[in-house]
């Protein structure tokens, strides 16, 4: 089994570094979608055509300019167990779509897992750069550099009017999706979140749960990304997202301060109560875990708790997902057993 290391550590190396505004912005992700001009898109490609695409893209890995990003490991989806695919999804290294539907799907993952290049997903090529904290510009700069290297080797499907041609009409043009994962507990507590989220959707941005389309916002984590890919330049898209996220950060900070000054005792109670439950509970479902971890994270960020490192919380966000729990404690866990092991895991990490 190749490169299992990617599914053994819950926390990617890139996440351990922290980043700008990391008390509110957990991570930043930029992905660009590209297709090769002479092959049908993956949905209609024959196995042989998909194999060819994979071959062509894999050859690009020999370009020495790519070495600055760390060794890229090619992983074929066909070589992976279902559980490992699930974990790669939970770590955001591949999309649920690549894990579930792709034929001849593959992913090239960099040593520190900050770069993942998906092949034969909905599009032939999806370059994805991950950064800790709030680093949209940095992530875009890296993604576009890597894009240029690929373009030197393969012929992209590009049209003067429509831009980069993609399988789904929602990606055409720049093929760019920039997203930022934010922890917004104070805006949720003060019930300002809906107002802010609906404002966000009016400026061409969209809000999703942390595992993409259709997923629920758990643990006060929200993923904000651009919706429009056609008719705006990459710079506009990045600046637009940057500006809006900056404002949301400001609102969240204000809300946190107000909560601390106006209802300090209730905040302390809420945060410490969750801290206590995480340290001692014997059964913990995923929803409660997400909510309690969010409370404790807030407690750490506003200085009410000082003995839980933020890294542990990031780690637990991944470790308490079903795939990773199965990896740690066995594949055939019943939901009841899962809740028991989840509680045990959290106790060991958070409790003393």
């Amino acid at each position, binding site marked *: 089994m190749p490169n299992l290391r990617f599914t053994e550590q819950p926390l990617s190396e890139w996440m351990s570094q922290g980043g700008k505004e990391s008390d509110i912005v957990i991570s930043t992700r930029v992905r660009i979608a590209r297709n090769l001009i002479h092959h049908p*898109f993956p949905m209609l490609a024959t196995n042989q055509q998909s194999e060819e695409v994979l071959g062509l893209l894999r050859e690009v890995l020999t370009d020495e300019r790519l070495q600055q990003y760390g060794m890229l490991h090619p992983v074929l989806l066909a070589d992976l167990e279902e559980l490992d695919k699930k974990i790669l999804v939970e770590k955001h290294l591949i999309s649920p779509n690549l894990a579930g539907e792709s034929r001849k799907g593959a992913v090239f993952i960099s040593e520190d897992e900050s770069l993942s290049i998906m092949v034969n997903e909905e599009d032939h090529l999806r370059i994805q750069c991950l950064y800790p904290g709030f680093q949209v510009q940095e992530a875009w700069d890296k993604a576009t550099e890597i894009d240029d290297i690929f373009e030197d080797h393969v*012929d992209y499907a590009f049209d003067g*009017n*429509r831009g*980069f041609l993609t399988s*789904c009409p929602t990606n055409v043009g720049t093929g760019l999706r920039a997203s930022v994962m934010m922890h917004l507990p104070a805006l949720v507590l003060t019930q300002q979140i809906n107002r802010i989220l609906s404002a966000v959707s009016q400026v061409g941005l969209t809000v999703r749960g942390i595992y993409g389309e*259709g*997923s629920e916002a758990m643990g006060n984590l929200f993923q904000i990304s651009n919706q429009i890919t056609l008719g*705006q330049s990459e710079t506009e898209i990045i600046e637009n997202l940057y500006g809006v996220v900056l404002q949301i950060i400001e609102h969240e900070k204000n809300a946190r301060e107000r909560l601390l000054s106006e209802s300090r005792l209730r905040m302390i109670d809420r945060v410490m109560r969750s801290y206590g439950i995480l340290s001692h509970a014997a059964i913990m479902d995923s929803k409660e875990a997400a909510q309690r971890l969010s409370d404790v994270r807030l407690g750490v960020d506003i200085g009410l708790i000082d003995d839980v490192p933020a890294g542990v919380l990031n780690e637990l966000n991944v470790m308490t997902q079903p795939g990773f729990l199965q990896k740690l404690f066995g594949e055939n866990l019943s939901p009841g057993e899962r809740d028991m092991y989840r509680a045990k895991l959290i106790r060991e990490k958070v409790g003393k």
Partner: protein
Amino acid sequence: MQCQECGKRPATLHFTKIVNGEKTEFHICEACAREKGEMIPGTTGGFSIHNLLSGLMDFHPGIQGHPSAAKQNENIRCEECGLTYSQFSKIGRFGCSSCYKYFNDRLDPLFKRVHGNTVHVGKVPKRAGSHIQVQRKLDDLRRELQYRIVQEEFEEAAALRDQIRELEKNIPAE
């Protein structure tokens, strides 16, 4: 509220799309949503963007269920990969890069609704788009030339004119 699709059952699925301040609302019932292959929110997989999209492509209020409209969509076909427009509007995805060419006449309204725009203004690839880059550069230079002339800065204008001539030599005759 009645379902926009069948007009019989009450609409239980509502979605609103706002692009550049332009609001579009859709109201359909579960049965019609299911018939169109769309998932219902709350079930596994959720209500994916493709489902929303195929909604956008198929909804032409007024001519819904009109047989000739459906027939027309059958007849528009990508000669490269064989996908018909009606298949495209059902799946919400193109089959190959040539689909953009064969479906071109119908794409402006769709892109307008999804993105609020129809023309790409971003990055141009170095190789595949080299002539487009030259073209954009030329447009910029010509605009600047106009400006310099109006400002009566003839020395700069002359330099720009030479630059434009030089670039024009590199454009392959089409």
